């Protein structure tokens, strides 16, 4: 991980050039693989890829759909960047965002909905804060388990993902909590009109800028503040950081809160601006894809948004590709899996550090 000061000297420039070449190779490799899979499944790659491109970026509505999904994906991924930078393998964005979206929907519909709708702009803020609080709380559960019982956060966040999935499903099946009386499916009521951020599917909305703002804020926080430095120090070498007087436990808990809040924020924003309701969660969704986004962005906040746009475009484009060119939507998941593996070959610096740390700890014991 090159530090910001290192980018000014020549070593940093070489590193940046390598990153560029690597990214171009990755994109080319992805396209070639995609074309191969399409050819293997008996379709014309040129027609299919053309359909994919036009579906994601070729029309106003396609562009809006891609941008909206990219922003939600970027918010989740920024949370993952922050927790991975702190050395915490928090893979719970899926669950955290679901819980955030569910609480946002509870606050924005039914009895609470009447109250929040009356507040208009303040009501929107209340709903967003509710989502953030719920996401942060869900993430903090894993943090507490880690501090209190040394439960590895990888296991606890993975398990909490599924607990959240089922919990939200339970909310959606219980009329007293979230289930709509009007729908036969597991869906909540639509949120009140004044709370809806204009329909992003058809027009751009200034709220989209929130994604950019969040990315810039995360960058400034990580690389230009004292607490951001402490967080990265803990992630790079927790033992050394403690020796330097950084309170490890507090920093780690803070990283859980921040990443959970970002995931919850993304979920709540989805309810206000995209879905306008809460519905049955599905398995293998954006929370997992966001991990791929964070890794491809090399855990750099400013790179998260462009990467998220590519991933969101792939997702949106694949849906229209299935319709017009007859290529299965599922190929997207093959591509995502391959991208993650490609990233792993190159090596993710954070893991390298923790590996070295584990080895030196092993040696110290032996």
């Amino acid at each position, binding site marked *: 991980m090159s530090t910001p000061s290192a980018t000014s000297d020549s070593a940093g420039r070489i590193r940046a050039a390598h990153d560029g070449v690597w990214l171009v190779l990755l994109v080319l490799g992805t396209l070639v693989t995609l074309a191969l899979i399409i050819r293997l499944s008996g379709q014309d790659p040129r027609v299919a890829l053309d359909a994919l491109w036009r579906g994601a970026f070729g029309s106003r509505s396609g562009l809006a759909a891609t941008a909206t999904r990219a922003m939600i994906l970027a918010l989740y991924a920024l949370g993952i960047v922050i927790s991975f930078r702190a050395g915490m393998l928090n893979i719970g964005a899926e669950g955290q965002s679901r819980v955030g979206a569910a609480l946002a929907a509870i606050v924005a519909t039914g009895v609470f909905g009447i109250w929040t709708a009356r507040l208009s702009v303040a009501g929107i803020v209340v709903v967003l804060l509710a989502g953030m609080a719920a996401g942060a709380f869900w993430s903090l559960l894993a943090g507490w*388990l880690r501090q209190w019982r040394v439960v590895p956060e990888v296991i606890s966040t993975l398990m909490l993902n599924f607990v959240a999935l089922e919990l939200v499903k339970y909310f959606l099946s219980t009329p007293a909590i979230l289930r709509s009386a009007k729908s036969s499916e597991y869906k909540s009521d639509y949120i009140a009109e004044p709370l809806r951020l204009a329909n992003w599917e058809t027009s751009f909305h200034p709220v989209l800028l929130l994604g950019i703002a969040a990315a810039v804020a995360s960058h400034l926080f990580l690389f230009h503040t004292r607490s951001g430095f402490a967080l990265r120090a803990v992630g790079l070498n927790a033992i050394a950081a403690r020796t330097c007087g950084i309170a490890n436990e507090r920093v780690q808990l803070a990283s859980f809160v921040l990443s959970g809040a970002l995931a919850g924020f993304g979920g709540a924003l989805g309810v206000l601006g995209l879905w306008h309701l809460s519905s049955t969660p599905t398995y293998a969704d954006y929370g*997992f894809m966001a991990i791929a986004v964070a890794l491809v962005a090399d855990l750099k906040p400013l790179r998260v948004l462009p990467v998220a746009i590519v991933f969101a475009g792939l997702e949106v484009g694949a849906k229209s590709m299935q319709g017009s060119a007859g290529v299965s939507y599922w190929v997207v998941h093959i591509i995502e899996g391959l991208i993650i593996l490609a990233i792993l070959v190159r090596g993710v610096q954070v893991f390298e550090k923790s590996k070295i740390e584990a080895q030196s700890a092993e040696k110290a014991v032996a």
Partner: protein
Amino acid sequence: MSGMDAAMEAILRISTPLLLAGLGELILERAGVINIGAEGVMLCGAFFGFLAGWGSGCPWIGACAGMIAGVFLMLLFASFAIRFKADQIVTGMALNLLALGLTGTGNEILRRASSIAPQAVTFEPMIPSLSHLPLLGPLLFSQTALSWLAILLVPALYWYFEFSERGMELRAVGENPVAAEASGISVLTCRWKACIAAGALAGLGGAFLTISQTASFSDGCTRGRGFVAISAVVLGRYSTGGTAAACLFFGAAFYARDAFPSLNVPTELVEMLPYALTLVALCIKFGRSSAPAGLGKAYGGS
């Protein structure tokens, strides 16, 4: 067949894929490798097992194909997580996505190629004539071959871990790879072998779903069973008996949900049970820590 017998028979049937995948994951985790891609391995086993079973008309060929598909996916996992020392969690996630994409695309092609929904030939109960015996008759003899295999695997694995030299070596690799290597055990070879065994078992567990239970494949039909298997290993405190008991318990819970709708227990809470219980179990500490000390760490200088 009385109600009780039918219940026992069904619980064992529901638990079989969990047992197979869970015991496979146990072998892997005792060797110090964690694979959260078990779900993907099962899914691949289910699809390719179904494909071969349907094409050949023989469930045994289907079972073999499921195992081979699982092994292939785990060889991919091992190349990254063991050979390149990549992070095991992220590699496992990539495996899940890859499997979801591969089986989904394959199923789409299959659907387009044939006008009628393909049906695989399924396993028959082992010895139906004996299934009328009182007490254990229905429980044991109306099961298919794969359930038998899953049951027999439990004592076999127990013996392997506790009494065989190879099993102890594998445990040493998981607990303290540096010491194991110093005593002449090849850590990497041992972990590669554990990956192959886990892939075969999880693939077979997945194949059980399509060639012994439903006879058809639908997208994402493993429905999180791979993750339940991982929970079972943690809840079973990384022991053979504990893992098997956890798998049977989850099987019983799923059975009770389907069999007694009058109980009015929300399905979601039953589905949540494995994960919630695992979290609770992780909080309750008694005796020594049960997880292998070297779990999840790559071995070897980079």
